């Protein structure tokens, strides 16, 4: 072991040899890899503040190279952090003096089984490229987070992501059949011998890696469920007298087994900004493989919506949403940044009985000094509840930023919500995770210590 006499130059030379020169320690490269899409980190960057820099970035091309890199890090006691699309919003990839292991050259589709409806891929494949590949063969992953254009599969698993169609197709955890990873000590956690739909073979490592944010090793391959592209769909929007009425309508829809692919309930503030319509709006998309089934569902859903006072508002709002759903830059460029403002999105989930309470209390964050808008919608519905998603506009100032977050976390924790539905913990939420999961955190940390005794795999985050 060389921990006592760490020579950066020697490490970098061995690094270069390990990946055939596919690495860099140039200051510009380190700077661009010094953050993900965490709004606070971006704010610091545009204000000219220096973020903690990694020591180098490497682009391995194979499992074997990832193993070499992790072993090298163990030998030199250099921490490492996996990096995929860089589209996370919680600062999970910020890791001072770490080796950034960027998996995006590991981007192959290894196997698509059309017969069994699954695909085996390397973890660096970009979600969009995978979706395009599948679409060309009549299949789809149906996983469309807002980061769809820039995210990569490994990062989505490590974040425990959901997509906009999750109400029907599930989150990444529902799509993930199995994975391969390199453990923090450089050992390989392999795919199971056979791809199977389910197995009762003890606790699954894949569950540990889901949402692990790079703290338990590096995901290198994933087997994912795929779907045939549904040939029949229905799109419509409905206006309600209140946010609650709309939510209760969706609750009944979901609990009646009429699950839509997409359901999004916008409160009147969010609707007015996004659609220029100041009513509480429900955006609905249904997808089915049978036309009679689709028609039956549309008819039943129509009855439920009417009972809750919903009135048809047309397909245009759905089309507008579809057109803009990945566009995070237009408003920033046109209005937010030019006015010296900044942005944040905060998501939570709660059971039906707590959703309205959280929504109304969270909206009071608008009273916080420096906050100008708190827009809200509910998306990602479950039998037991839903995700609430808040978009905030505020003074481009770090103090205001943390004032918002302290208040937001207080509101969700005191009113039955989770601190994160799908963005994850990262550096952003680490101080609140214990408040939610309590001593379970200690057990998770013990698992981390067992797998990563040297604390090399993305240290400094919630697992220590």
């Amino acid at each position, binding site marked *: 072991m060389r921990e006592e006499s760490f020579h950066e130059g020697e490490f970098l030379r061995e690094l270069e040899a390990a990946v055939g020169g596919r690495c*860099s320690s140039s200051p*510009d*490269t380190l700077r*661009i*890899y010094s953050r993900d*899409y965490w709004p606070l980190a*971006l704010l610091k960057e*545009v204000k000219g503040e220096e973020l903690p820099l990694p020591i180098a*970035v490497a*682009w391995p091309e194979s499992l074997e190279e990832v193993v070499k890199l992790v072993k090298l890090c163990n030998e030199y006691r250099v921490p490492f952090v996996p990096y995929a*699309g*860089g*589209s996370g919003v919680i600062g999970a990839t910020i890791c001072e003096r770490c080796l950034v292991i*960027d*998996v*995006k*050259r590991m*981007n192959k589709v290894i196997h698509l089984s059309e017969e069994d409806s699954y695909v085996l891929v390397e973890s*660096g494949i*970009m979600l*969009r*490229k995978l979706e395009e590949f599948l679409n060309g063969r009549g299949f789809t992953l149906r996983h469309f987070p807002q*980061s769809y*254009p*820039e995210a990569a599969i490994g990062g989505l698993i490590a974040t425990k992501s959901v997509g906009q169609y999750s109400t029907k197709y599930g989150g990444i955890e529902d799509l993930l059949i199995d994975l391969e990873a390199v453990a923090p000590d450089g050992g390989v956690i392999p795919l199971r011998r056979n791809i199977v739909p389910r197995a009762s073979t003890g606790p699954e490592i894949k569950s540990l890696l889901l949402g692990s944010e790079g703290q338990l090793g590096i995901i290198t391959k994933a087997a994912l469920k795929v779907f045939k592209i549904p040939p029949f769909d229905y799109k419509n929007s409905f206006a309600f007298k209140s946010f609650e009425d709309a939510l209760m309508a969706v609750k009944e829809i979901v609990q009646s087994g009429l699950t839509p692919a997409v359901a999004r309930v916008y409160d*009147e*503030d*969010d609707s*007015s*900004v996004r659609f*220029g319509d*100041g009513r509480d709006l429900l955006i609905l998309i249904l997808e089915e493989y049978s036309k009679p089934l689709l028609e039956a569902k549309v008819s039943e859903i129509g009855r439920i919506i009417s009972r809750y006072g919903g009135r048809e508002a047309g397909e245009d709002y759905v089309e507008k949403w579809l057109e*803009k759903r*990945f*566009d*995070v*830059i*237009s408003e*920033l*460029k046109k*209005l937010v*940044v*030019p*006015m*010296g403002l900044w942005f944040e999105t905060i998501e939570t989930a709660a059971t039906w009985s707590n959703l309205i309470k959280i929504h109304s209390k969270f909206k009071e964050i*608008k009273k916080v000094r420096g*906050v*100008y*808008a708190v*827009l809200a919608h509910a998306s990602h519905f479950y039998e037991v509840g839903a995700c609430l998603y808040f978009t905030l*506009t505020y003074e481009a100032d770090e103090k205001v930023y943390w004032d918002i977050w302290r208040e937001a976390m207080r509101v969700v924790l005191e009113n039955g919500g989770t601190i994160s539905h799908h963005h994850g913990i990262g550096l952003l939420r680490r101080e609140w995770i214990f408040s939610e999961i309590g001593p379970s955190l200690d057990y998770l940390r013990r698992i981390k210590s067992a797998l990563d005794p040297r604390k090399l795999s993305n240290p400094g985050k919630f697992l220590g």
Partner: protein
Amino acid sequence: MIRAIKLTPSLLLRFFRRKEVRVPCIYCPGICIASCPTFLESGNMMLSPLGYSRHPEIGRRECLKCWRCVSECPLNYELPETFSDGIEVGLELVREGTPMLLSVEGLDEGYASRLAEELEAGFCIAKGLLRRYDDGCRIENLSEIRRRLKGIKVLSLSPEASHSLGIPFLLEAAHELPLKLEYEGSVHIPCLLSDRSESIVHNLELIGAKINGVIKDSCLKQSIPDALILCPRAPKNIYDLLEIRTL
């Protein structure tokens, strides 16, 4: 919308004193990134629009100026023309005639000259235009050039001139000319014309080609696929295969 925002006097004032965002990529997570050939090949964020926008000197050197990022950008931000100082393009008329074949200096003058002679067409040369796609710069007198070409039936031999000047690509109007092409196989669609794939393939078929595959995802500046190449930049391209049909 107003009700959704907590309006304060200072916020209102700022609305009227908005500062322009000159490089939006700085604030973007990389919406266009999966279309960037250098990024897809390397996996390196520095070799993507995120890197090029922060370091124009790297963009000048490494970006392929394929403009795919522009078509993916919700703002249509023209990043590939921000890497070097602006230039003025000249237009030299070599021979009057209709249609007028437009070539780009240093790119396809030889092909244009030969074709113009065989078709008894006009011929002109855009001088300096190539720099937009080699160095990544803005054409300062673009509107003037476009104005000069207005009302003339101009056809461009290169994707570059067609893309810059908004004039039809010769192969989109091929069926109007006495041209024939004996070819069977795939065709590579130039990056700069990726949105015109259907019309190009249709026209190639009208002049005799049998197209059985379309390659849209690769950039010739990276590698040349085994296909019919439409860019005069490539050593062997469609202009080496086109023949004049005798009427």
